[in-house]
């Protein structure tokens, strides 16, 4: 200890030097500590993804293959029976994962692209541009989004493209709000000022200085938004303006088979048929929320008491 000062060197100062770990090792450590609910969520999401990706391989019949017997009971040939025009329920459930999830994913990505970049621009530039964007978003948010979406879809027609663009636009308002509010906390940091003083352009500041530092809440929001978009699409399909037949989709499947529920007294399993796509929607939403909850807790920096 006596010689410490004489040999003072900046390199020997004790920083919080950590053991270097590869990304994979860090992820594994986090996973080991994940609670049961998060594991459940991850397994379910993973299973859905496998089903969606390999739908043609898994499904016993084609997506729009019609069999003579409509509203067939559950049997070994049609595990969950057939729908009102004689298509295999199980196959349509499997293809539905692909369609509903794929469209929801695209919509969410688009809404993050729009809302995220506008939010970052608003946070960096402030002033009148920020006011203009924020107030326009306020106006959009003041209109109930489901009714607004219904209106727009009936004006422009319910194609998949329109569906994706309209829901993405309406949803991007919430992404904008979140991105802007987390980014304004980062914008005031000295390193952003240093980048401005260096003469860096808007694009660099957005991509390199802000985005990496606001990722965790955005990733969590992505999961949540995905759930909501998914529910919105299902709701719109249920109302008949979402994904159009013959494309398999869980929302419209609930609607089409809803009247089967009255036969539950005769054959209990037939009554269950319309509930299957509804359960698929519910399970995915719950699973995504479990994962998001865990992720938010992990990145919030709250330490568990040891």
């Amino acid at each position, binding site marked *: *200890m006596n010689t410490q*000062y004489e040999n003072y060197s900046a390199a020997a100062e004790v920083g919080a030097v950590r053991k270097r770990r590869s990304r994979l090792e860090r992820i594994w450590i986090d996973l080991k500590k994940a609670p049961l609910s998060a594991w459940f969520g991850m397994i379910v999401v993973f299973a859905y993804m496998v089903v969606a990706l390999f739908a043609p391989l898994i499904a016993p019949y084609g997506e729009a293959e019609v069999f003579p017997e409509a509203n067939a009971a559950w049997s070994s040939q049609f595990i969950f029976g057939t729908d009102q025009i004689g298509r295999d329920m199980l196959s349509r459930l499997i293809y539905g994962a692909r369609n509903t999830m794929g469209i929801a994913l695209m919509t969410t990505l688009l809404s993050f692209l729009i809302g995220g970049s506008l939010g970052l621009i608003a946070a960096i530039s402030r002033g009148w541009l920020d006011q203009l964007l924020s107030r326009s978003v306020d106006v959009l948010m003041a209109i109930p989004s489901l009714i607004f979406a219904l209106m727009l879809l009936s004006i422009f027609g319910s194609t998949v493209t329109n569906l994706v663009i309209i829901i993405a636009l309406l949803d991007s308002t919430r992404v904008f709000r979140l991105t802007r509010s987390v980014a304004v906390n980062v914008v005031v940091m000295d390193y952003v000022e240093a980048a401005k*003083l260096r003469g860096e352009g808007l694009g660099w500041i957005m991509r390199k200085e802000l985005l990496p530092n606001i990722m965790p809440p955005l990733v969590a929001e992505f999961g949540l938004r995905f759930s909501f978009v998914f529910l919105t699409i299902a709701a719109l399909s249920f109302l008949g303006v979402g994904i159009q037949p013959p494309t398999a989709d869980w929302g419209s499947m609930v609607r089409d088979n809803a009247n089967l529920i009255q036969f539950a007294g005769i054959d209990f399993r037939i009554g269950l048929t319309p509930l299957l796509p509804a359960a698929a929607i519910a399970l995915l939403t719950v699973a995504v929320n479990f994962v998001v909850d865990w992720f938010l807790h992990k990145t919030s920096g709250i*330490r568990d*008491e040891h």
Partner: protein
Amino acid sequence: MDADEMNNNQSGAAAGDVLLEMRDVHIEGFSDEQWHPIIKGVDITLKRGEIMGLIGESGAGKSTLGLAAMGFARPGCRITKGTIRFDNQELTELPKKNKRELWGTRIAYVAQSAAASFNPAHRLIDQTVEAANRSQIRPVAESRSDAIDLFKALQLPSPDTIGSRYPHQVSGGQLQRVMTAMAMSPRPDLIIFDEPTTALDVTTQVEVLASMRKIVEEFHTAAIYITHDLAVVAQMADFIKVLRYGDEVEEAPTRSMLSAPQQEYTKSLWSVRDFEKPEEQGDDVVLSLDGIDAAYGKTKVLHDINISLTRGKTVAVVGESGSGKSTAARVITGLLPPGKGQVVFNGEALPRELKGRSKEQLQRIQMIYQMADTAMNPRQTVGQIIGRPLDFYLGLTGAAQEKRVLELLKMIELDESFIDRLPSELSGGQKQRICIARALAAEPEIIICDEVTSALDQIVQEGILKLLLSLQKEFGISYLFITHDIATVKAISDEIVVMFQGKVVEQGLKSEILNPPYPEYTKLLLSSVPEMDPDWLTNLLSERA
């Protein structure tokens, strides 16, 4: 109200009794999947009415030890060994419920950042009396008038009404005193002050120190005073304990510690701020502010400022917070366009706004910030941080860039192993060195240093200042050095500018400014800098009275 009367809840307890006894305390912290020792077997014995100073550099475990004196370990920390006896109760074995009864009422804690510790939604007086009311120390009706008495004792302005304000309506120094009143309100036996004046500037610090010392003496409260500033602890403490790497280096009564420190480490702490750069007068003016007025919205902050900086020299800008030092820097960098006047660089006027300036002009004026933590993107490695200006201004990429980064790292006395570290893996001093390297990478003519050493420990400060001086000698860079610390000014400057309320009080060579005759404000500023003399505060107060 009489001090004895106010002190009645400790009736029967004579001064001189041992109040707090910590033996062989070990504390561990959890990080990176492992428990690491933070405190490695420290003993503390504190009698009633005594004040212990706890000093050491950051990371020495001072705050952890201070909290342990309350029987508390932060989340992620645990007390693994040792005994903590407070007034004959063993805190390590006491259930949490009983500890909660002690906390806030018999042991109080005054945190470093008062602004962060108050609830912004409640009035000051309600927060001041909360602990006393909760534990029913005295009738609720009396606690308000008692709080007002405390405000008076702490020399707060308009003590009768200040309590009805909200935290954001009073200044930092006042808030720190209200927090002391809050700690005092239940008349605790022990107060732990954790760097209570570190965030304040010198002129405010003197007032806060004086009122804290007065009230602690008046109520005969024992205290642990945690700080890294030796001169401050010399004013407050009866005895001092020096801590390093979680272990005790030395303990002695204040006077003997100051006059004859035993350990090498302690001596090095004491001698650290003796070096002083001989002043030199420059002739070649590289930057000047001519008649600058600047305002934030409608609030005018700078009034007709004239400052000039010569090539290869250092101008130190001193003044308390709010005097406009940092605003002047923002005008120079173009972040805040001046209302009137111009910034002249190398004989030509710089465009007022950042947008209007060329890359070349931006490159020549670089800036280093006070908080190195927030001045570096936490997601970029050291190599990326230093490499960016090389790429941006000089077009260096790939191997050439890496070679230059390594050269720069060598200049700031760090080795090549640092190149892929993240800022969170560096110590405070190392972070500030990386910021210096980043400024240096642009090959500037001027570096604006905004309080670059004030967040660092003294030994580290000295290292940084020496580095800056040697770089200046080598590359002929001019520094505009903004600080409120007079010792730093002595160490580094050639010329000094004294600022007060947005005006320049005087500018001149160091020897002219630091020697009499002084303008009145300069005198106040200079006399407020704590000295390593236990009687300094007492003498100063009697002088000013």
